[in-house]
């Protein structure tokens, strides 16, 4: 049915000229309209006669909202009144304000009514107890529109200063969660132009008219701009409403048009010409839309959605238009997740009746509503029937499919999700593909293509570049030699990897290779000599830097989680057998590709129950490190010898002294371990991943969790003296453990590689450092007193020095503090050690 042949719906003169508002009751049986005269009208759905009038009411009403039992109106005289729909009469005043009311809104459960007036404070009053009121005070100017989100946990206030304020109503006191700047324009409260925030029915996003006459969707989770409905209106938008299932959006503008948009494609479905529309309301279930204009007329538009799109009305709940829907983002895990909700269910229309069914024979008069004993009088939905005579599952969340299915099954193991180290998920239309100490790679979704930008920290060595990416790369690795990209398989192109060296002496050095059909990439890694790719087919594919396939093998543990590489070593992580907590155990394999040696074969990654790995990478010295979801950085010791590997914690970010005050909540996004420091990005305010603009890198010293952390200095000088001694000893003890660990790692490195002279002398220096630390510890012990002598002696026995010089020095320290007995014993230890060395020789 084309728009031209449609019958033009005639407006019903409901009120005198002036702003007119309307609201459908949630069960859809009644439509309440209020206007500038002292009369309310209640239209019955499907009944074309005169509406019921309610006389006893104020003039110049500016807002209405309804539940099945009552409706609430707000008037310019500052009163908010509640009317019963049962008796069609005035119930009570909910509130009085000193200034005109601008908007009223009832939460979905009907218990709370929010009122915006020209006063600065927005009040939320209990509908059955006017004495309990919540106040929202943070905004600096009057609020024009208010809207509860579908769960009524949040409320959005469109303020006249051009900001949208979001309050959380879950706690005892309402709390300002976020302010959104630059979404709506500044509009005075008495203007017809709307700045209303319309929540998408799935509650994860909302839409609002912008200053550019578009409708912008924004997600509530990360306050990021998502899709926009653009290019429809030539004038400012005056009204906005999502269809009850979220599949469509209706908007009216000053350009005398009503536009019906499709949510999924953000395309215009149809356009109607109606002027001065002030408020739009969808019928909760039917293909019926009503709107009012500033002439006091009400239009009740049956079959508003034209025939060829009418099936959209009947769909179940539809997701909000995200650029990258976080819930529909399919992980590259081999197991396909169960289909979400009703997304893929095709529309079949109403089923035809089976031949000679009882319904057909007896007719609806007998089997119909008249003698149906179940009357849905509270709107709970149990008596709602759809076209097939079944109760619709409208209440179900479109995304709870897998959960309920899981509950039905007896049990299912929880896998570790696969991930690409150093990358972030999509947020809005941006995503970091790779963040490391060389530089960073990010991509911006431009609908038809992406733009990828590679930036370096060292501007002298490399030049930043960016390119238009038609392959939609979603993973990247960056190092000093080049950049590696990979894109997932889609309908016609298989998964592809693309390597681009930074420097070249031939005309073309970049190459691209395609994976076999049906195979997708889970993680990629790049180092000085090899490119490693793990795939959903559980293959680990190793290429040389110029694309020669070097090795392919199947990973023993599956599905694969991720991979990392350093020189000739490749580390792969995979899901292993299921542990006692229902999670699969994470297994780690380290392989030397060139020598074809297995260093660690399916070794368990030590993780606490229910935790997972956030990132895995090699340190600059070539030791594997993981950062887990408890915020601990661990490194692998003795990993070159099979089954000797142990995971040692290097730093527990929860115990950092910067968090000791308890005021800060922050998490850390791991970047690298280099120079004996942990490089990360500090994330504040509950963020999980870094976002734009790129935050600065922070670095933390290693701190092996040994004892209770010393409290940060509280400023009282009296406690300082005794605390300092203990702290000093603790610090030295920490140093000792850390230095021993680093020395052991360095020793491993020297043993297994062709070590240079500088490396060997570094090792000697490190050992000397350990002895020095021990000597300092011993000095503290000696100072503390004679009675700590045994501890001091033990420290001397721990010394590594074979020449006896250190022990001699220890003897001198003991002498200086006048610990003669200790000095004697130290000399004995020294002699024994020297003899022992000679025996070994």
């Amino acid at each position, binding site marked *: 049915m084309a728009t031209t042949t449609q019958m033009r719906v005639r407006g019903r003169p409901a009120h005198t000229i002036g702003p007119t508002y309307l609201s459908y009751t949630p069960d859809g049986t009644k439509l309440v309209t209020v206007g500038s005269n002292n009369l309310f009208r209640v239209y019955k759905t499907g009944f074309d006669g005169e509406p019921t009038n309610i006389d006893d009411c104020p003039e110049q009403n500016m807002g209405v909202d309804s539940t099945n039992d009552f409706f609430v109106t707000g008037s310019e005289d500052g009163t908010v009144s509640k009317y019963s729909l049962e008796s069609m009469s005035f119930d009570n005043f909910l509130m009085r304000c000193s200034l005109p009311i601008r908007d009223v809104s009832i939460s979905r459960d009907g218990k709370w009514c929010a009122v915006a007036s020209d006063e600065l404070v927005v009040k939320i009053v209990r509908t059955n107890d006017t004495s309990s009121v919540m106040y929202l005070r943070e905004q600096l100017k009057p609020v024009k529109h208010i809207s509860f989100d579908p769960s009524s946990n949040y409320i959005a206030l469109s303020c006249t200063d051009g900001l949208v304020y979001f309050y959380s109503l879950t706690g005892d006191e309402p709390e300002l969660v976020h302010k959104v700047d630059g979404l709506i324009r500044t509009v005075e409260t008495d203007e017809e132009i709307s700045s209303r925030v319309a929540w998408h029915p799935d509650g994860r996003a909302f839409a609002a008219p912008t200053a550019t006459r578009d409708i912008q969707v924004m997600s509530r989770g990360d306050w990021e701009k998502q899709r926009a409905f653009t290019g429809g209106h030539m004038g400012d938008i005056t009204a906005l409403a999502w269809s009850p299932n979220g599949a469509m959006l209706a908007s009216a503008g000053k350009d005398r048009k009503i536009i019906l948009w499709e949510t999924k494609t953000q395309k215009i479905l149809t356009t109607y010409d109606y002027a001065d529309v002030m408020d739009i309301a969808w019928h909760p279930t039917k293909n019926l839309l009503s709107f009012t204009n500033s002439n006091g007329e009400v239009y009740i538009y049956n079959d508003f959605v034209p025939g060829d799109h009418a099936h959209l009305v009947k769909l179940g709940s539809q997701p909000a238009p995200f650029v990258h829907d976080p819930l529909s983002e399919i992980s590259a895990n081999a197991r396909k997740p169960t289909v979400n909700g009703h997304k893929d269910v095709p529309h079949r229309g109403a089923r035809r009746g089976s031949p000679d069914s009882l319904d057909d024979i007896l007719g609806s008069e007998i089997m119909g509503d008249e003698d149906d004993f179940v009357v849905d009088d509270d709107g709970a939905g149990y008596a709602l029937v759809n076209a097939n005579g079944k109760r619709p599952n409208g209440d179900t969340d479109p995304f709870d499919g897998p959960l309920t299915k899981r509950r039905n099954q007896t049990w299912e193991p929880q896998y570790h999700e696969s991930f690409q180290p150093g990358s972030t998920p999509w947020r809005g239309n941006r995503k970091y593909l790779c963040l490391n100490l060389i530089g960073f790679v990010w991509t911006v979704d431009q609908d038809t293509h992406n733009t990828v930008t590679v930036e370096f920290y060292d501007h002298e060595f490399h030049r930043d570049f960016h390119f238009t990416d038609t392959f939609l790369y979603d993973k990247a690795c960056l190092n000093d030699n080049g950049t590696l990209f990979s894109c997932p398989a889609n309908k016609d192109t298989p998964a592809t990897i693309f390597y681009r060296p930074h420097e070249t002496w031939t005309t073309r050095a970049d190459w691209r290779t395609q994976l076999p059909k049906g195979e997708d990439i889970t993680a990629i890694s790049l180092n000085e000599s090899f490119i490693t790719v793990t795939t959903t087919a559980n293959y680990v594919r190793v290429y040389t830097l110029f694309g020669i396939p070097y090795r392919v093998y199947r990973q023993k543990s599956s599905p694969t989680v991720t991979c990392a590489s350093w020189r000739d070593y490749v580390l792969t992580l995979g899901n292993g057998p299921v542990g006692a907590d229902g999670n699969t155990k994470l297994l780690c394999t380290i392989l030397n590709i060139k020598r074809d040696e297995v260093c660690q074969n399916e070794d368990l990654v030590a993780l606490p129950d229910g935790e997972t790995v956030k990132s895995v990478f090699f340190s600059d010295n070539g030791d594997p490190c993981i950062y887990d979801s408890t915020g601990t950085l661990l490194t692998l010791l003795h990993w070159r010898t099979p089954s000797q590997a142990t995971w040692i914690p290097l730093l527990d970010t929860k115990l950092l002294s910067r968090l000791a005050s308890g005021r800060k909540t922050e998490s850390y996004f791991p970047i690298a371990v280099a120079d004996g420091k942990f490089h990360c990005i500090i994330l504040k305010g509950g963020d999980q991943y870094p976002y734009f603009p790129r935050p600065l890198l922070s670095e933390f010293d290693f701190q092996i969790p040994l004892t209770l952390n010393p409290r940060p200095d509280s400023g009282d000088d009296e406690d300082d*003296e005794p605390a300092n001694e203990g702290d000093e000893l603790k610090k030295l003890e920490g140093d000792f453990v850390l230095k021993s660990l680093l020395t052991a790692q360095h020793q491993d490195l020297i043993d297994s590689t062709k070590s240079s002279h500088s490396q060997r002398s570094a090792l000697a220096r490190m050992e000397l450092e350990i002895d020095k630390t021990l000597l300092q510890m011993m000095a503290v012990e000696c100072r503390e007193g004679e009675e700590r002598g045994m501890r001091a002696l033990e420290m001397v026995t721990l010394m590594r020095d074979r020449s006896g010089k250190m022990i001699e020095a220890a003897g001198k320290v003991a002498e200086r503090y006048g610990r003669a007995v200790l000095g004697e014993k130290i000399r004995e230890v020294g002699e024994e050690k020297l003899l022992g060395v000679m025996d070994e020789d």
Partner: protein
Amino acid sequence: MALPLSAGLTPTEVAFLCEMEMVTVIPRQRLESISLLSGPTPALRPPHRSPLPLWLALLLKRQRRANILPPPWLLPLSLERILKYETETSPETFSPPPPHPHPISARPSPSDSVSPPFLPSSTADAPAGYLPYHWLELGEILLEACPDDIPDSGRVRGLLRDLREVRMAKMRGSVSAVEGGGVMSLKGVGAMEVAEGRGFIVGVMDGLRKLGSSREVARREREEEGGAGGGDDEDEDMGFE
């Protein structure tokens, strides 16, 4: 003295001294270690942070070879806290200086006598919420040289101005305490504030002393008339004028 300069340091001299403070930079280019009089600088490798003297950091910043990391106390949150301390918590005294980075224990150690600009009070590891000795000059220099590296630099500029005004008012107010013969604690006062306040406070003190001395002379004269002797202080006083 032949020089027309008054006693103490001029603001340019204070700023010059301040340039010896260490700051943390994030290099954008590699740079090998340079041997300076104060010792070799660390080799710069992006994006590893390294401490450098302010003058060198400014030089590299101007050549776009490095970014300067603002010290934690120069962030708006920290400055707000200090301002609150100055105006509400303790409207009489100055906010305390940062704690000494080397723990001062009962035993004397060579690190005890280290003072600014040789203390790392403006690197990225410095504690937030304390104004170091060279706060005003350092803040002004950084705001002028690298406003792009300081988050919310407009607010920082405003807060620094506020702090300066509050503290200058205290400095001037301290004169009234001096009048009564008391001495106000100058703990936490910055180098530039001392240099600025010196002229005013010394002037006022001098004026007070003169007034006091003439009154003293009058009293002595009365006493002399009364028959008591002694007045050798007079000559000393006169000598200054």
